[in-house]
């Protein structure tokens, strides 16, 4: 019991998030759903406190890659803290978007924040556990909250359809993943990744007896992750859900939820195949998983980009673009080396700035034109330069053109790919950038090349300001990447992988 209580400070951010969640629920009840903005402000304030706790945790952990294990299933390390900070950062922006969404009701939307925080709590556990059961619980918490969020506009047919599709796909892939986990448990008798990697009943031993069940189990679990980060062929839900869900929710799915999927996937593969002390044969097996990921990466980015070429809806296009970007991140994962993994995490950080900005742009113009059609943007470029010029920055960053963080991110992935035997994949990625330029520039073209049209623009200073700020960061981190790089390196090294 005393051990239990001593461990509690290690999960202070999780506890704080839980308290915040309950507070949001109670305050919303007390307000009787009248002024939901207050709930929003409470959420933002609470997230700031959690962010502060996480920063404290980050520095407490120290640069040496210290690691604490609490309750036998949660690992407190800089890797997890990185993803938690990422989550808090994206939740804050998404909550801000909800508050600033002019098409959203002002009252009775307290659950919005509650669900977002619930999803956040799911992510917190997902990215820091080495226990498959807790991983599954975190994933389900995230998923359930996301289903409800996707269908938040109950009256809107598209929103309801999005939620329905999401539930069906999500339920299916959760089932697949759970089946994979049950196979792993059946073979090794444990649900702890560390015990699976070494130990007498290790996966390596099972692998020597018969490789097929191991392969089946691993592939099934990977399928669950692939669904979360929308990797081909588990991407079918993405465009419909992204299009139908309210824009702030889409933003959360594209940024927060995707990064969480990658965080959990990195820890899963790291702990199972690459961690210090793992069996040599299982490490070799990891390299083969890398090959599988590389093929998935190539297919995912190519399909995502090709499909995006034909979209007329901005949100659908960004959905396919987010699929393509999942492919880019996989390039880093596939290397199965720490430099590649840091590159993948760096790219996620880059993705944070440019994609949040791009969705902010969508939110802004949806309130102006009432649609997310690219054609509806025609001639509006000069009307809101504080939003459209940043959008150009996000677009070139998404394409991977300097001087933006998207370029440095892609460059690091590229180098990592070439260095670790995936030169062909790096070239596929480079060619994909050229393809993606075409559809990203369609937005710029619609905004600026068409004849300017007269249209009243509602004043949205805070939203425009936050979009512009994200653009500034996109450029700054494109020219000065050292801090970001230090953070992701510290994150990867705290996983204590056996690789260089």
């Amino acid at each position, binding site marked *: 019991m005393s051990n239990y209580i001593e461990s509690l400070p290690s999960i202070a951010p999780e506890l704080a998030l839980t308290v915040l969640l309950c507070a949001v629920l109670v305050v919303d009840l007390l307000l009787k759903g009248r002024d939901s903005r207050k709930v929003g402000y409470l959420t933002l304030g609470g997230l700031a406190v959690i962010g502060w706790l996480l920063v404290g945790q980050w520095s407490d952990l120290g640069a040496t890659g210290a690691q604490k294990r609490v309750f036998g299933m949660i690992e407190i390390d800089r890797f997890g803290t990185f993803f938690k900070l990422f989550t808090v950062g994206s939740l804050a922006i998404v909550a801000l978007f909800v508050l600033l969404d002019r098409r959203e009701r002002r009252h009775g939307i307290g659950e919005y924040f509650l669900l977002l925080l619930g999803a956040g709590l799911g992510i917190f556990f997902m990215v820091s556990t080495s226990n498959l059961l807790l991983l599954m619980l975190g994933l389900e918490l995230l998923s359930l909250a996301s289903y409800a969020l996707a269908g938040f506009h109950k009256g809107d047919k598209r929103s309801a359809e999005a939620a329905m599709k999401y539930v069906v796909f999500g339920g299916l892939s959760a089932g697949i993943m759970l089946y994979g986990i049950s196979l792993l448990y059946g073979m090794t008798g444990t649900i702890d990744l560390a015990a699976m990697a070494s130990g007498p009943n290790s996966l390596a031993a099972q692998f020597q007896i018969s490789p097929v069940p191991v392969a089946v189990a691993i592939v099934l679990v990977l399928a669950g992750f692939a669904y979360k980060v929308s990797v081909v062929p588990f991407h079918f839900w993405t465009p419909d859900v992204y299009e139908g869900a309210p824009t702030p929710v889409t933003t959360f799915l594209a940024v927060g939820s995707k990064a969480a999927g990658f965080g959990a996937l990195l820890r899963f593969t790291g702990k199972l195949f690459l961690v210090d002390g793992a069996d040599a044969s299982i490490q070799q097996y990891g390299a083969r998983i890398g090959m599988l990921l590389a093929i998935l990466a190539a297919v995912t980015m190519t399909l995502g980009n090709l499909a995006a070429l034909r979209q007329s809806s901005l949100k659908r296009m960004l959905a396919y673009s987010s699929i393509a970007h999942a492919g880019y991140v996989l390039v880093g994962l596939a290397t199965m080396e720490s430099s590649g993994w840091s590159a993948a995490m760096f790219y996620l950080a880059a993705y944070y700035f440019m994609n949040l900005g791009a969705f902010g742009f969508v939110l802004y113009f949806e309130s102006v034109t009432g649609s997310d059609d690219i054609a509806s943007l025609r001639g509006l470029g000069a009307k809101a330069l504080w939003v459209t010029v940043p959008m150009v920055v996000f677009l070139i960053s998404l394409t991977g053109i300097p001087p933006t963080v998207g370029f440095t991110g892609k460059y690091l992935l590229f*180098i990592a790919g070439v260095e670790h035997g995936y030169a062909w994949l790096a070239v596929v990625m480079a060619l994909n950038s*050229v393809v993606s330029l075409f559809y990203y520039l369609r937005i710029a073209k619609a905004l600026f090349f068409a004849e300017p049209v007269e249209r009243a623009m509602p004043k949205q200073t805070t939203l425009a300001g936050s979009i512009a700020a994200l653009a500034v960061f996109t450029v700054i981190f494109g020219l000065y*990447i050292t801090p970001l790089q230090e953070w992701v390196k510290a994150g990867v090294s705290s996983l204590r992988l056996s690789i260089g």
Partner: protein
Amino acid sequence: MQEHILSWITFLPLAGMALILCVPKTNTGLIKAISLVATGLPLVLATWLYFGLFQKSVAGPQFVQQLDWIHSIGAQYYVGIDGLSLALVWLTTLLLFIAVPASFGIDKSQKAYYALLLLLEVGIIGVFVSLDYFLFYVYWEVMLLPMYFLIGIWGGPRREYAAIKFFLYTLAGSVLMLVAIVALRLQSGSFSIPYLTELASAGAMDGSKLPGGGALLGMGFQTWIFWFLFIGFAIKVPVFPFHTWLPDAHVQAPTPISVILAGILLKLGGYGMLRACFPLVPDAFRANAYVLGILGVISIVYGAYVALGQTDFKRMVAYSSVSHMGYVLLGVAALTDMGMKGAALQMFNHGTSAAVLFLVVGVIYDRAHHRDLNGFGGISQVMPKYWALTTWGFFAALGLPTQAGFVSEAMTLMGAYQAQDTRFQVLVVISLIGIVLTAAFLLWAMQRVFLGTLNAKYKDYGDMSGREVFCQVPFLALCLILGIFPFLLTDWMDSSIKLLVGTLSKAA
């Protein structure tokens, strides 16, 4: 100031752009004034650098600034200038300075226009002064976006198509470049272009000079690096068969942007080959020099032949650029002192003569609002000043003796004829066809536009305004001065070019 002069020249336009963004968009007078100052100051500094500070006898880079930039990937802020880049930097500052008054006729979103123009200048000068390949690549890409918008917003009717085609072509080329840059970096551990050149010329083929040991550039590796970089730059030049973006971009771009495109942006391709491609992979270059020579000759003849068939004035001039830039490739491929010097001169001289030609087209287009060569006639009667300047410009472009184009074309051809590889003599003979065709299309165009009976529609046209004359005269003067005193360029280039030829022709 003196030791940082390159950074000043590069970033003054950026400061100008920042200032412009703070000016209300209705105050167009102030915006134009700022643009003039922000392009004029670099011109003054570049002139000072050219005639005052630069040491002609030094072959290597001067005014070097080397700072750590992104330590973890080894990128540096590493700039410097030598005889090869000096003239082009000066030409850039001049062209951009002239481009500002040449743009006074544009009245659509002027604030954005001048801001983008200044950003473009930053990118161009940045490429010319970069000695770090990462920095070079960043500047190279920074150029694309302003150019895309300048064509796409202020261009002609098919501007959207032309702008995206320009961007996609160039990006495809730069992606190939990036692949090669990364490969070079991983093999050698450095982005420094002088260091990579040194490695190559020190015969690092056996890998003896590498920090980590091992073979650096096997011939197979060199060859594909060479082609990736070459195609990246050849798209920019453009060399046949990568030229198809050029006519569209040129025709749709507004006049001042065409001037910059032909005058400077094409030179970036040629300069890139000389600075950042051939010296890094000299063996692959020598092995493929003849192929490059052939591509050069095809560009010369084919460009001129297609120009002959154009009815659109601007399209004709655009194809003439393909033809003229072919000499650069031929001269370089010959690998002689004379050919190389001719190629470097030709880059500069085409910068001035192409600028004149596009300005000439702009003058008549602003009045007639069409560019159909067959739709004019007898213009010389109403616009005598225009006729005089155009004639001068055409003669400069077709390489009449006393004009700069004559010197540089003659030098490239003579240089190519002297090449060790005697097959180049055949290429020289074939390229003579191009000279005849160039004379033919220019003189025929002159006849159709200026001579014959005056079309009644045009009888009220006013002659060139003072502003229009002011834009053309500096370039025409340069054509004449450098035609008579080519040493004003060659003296500055000599030592750098000797070094370059030495690097390239050294046997492995």
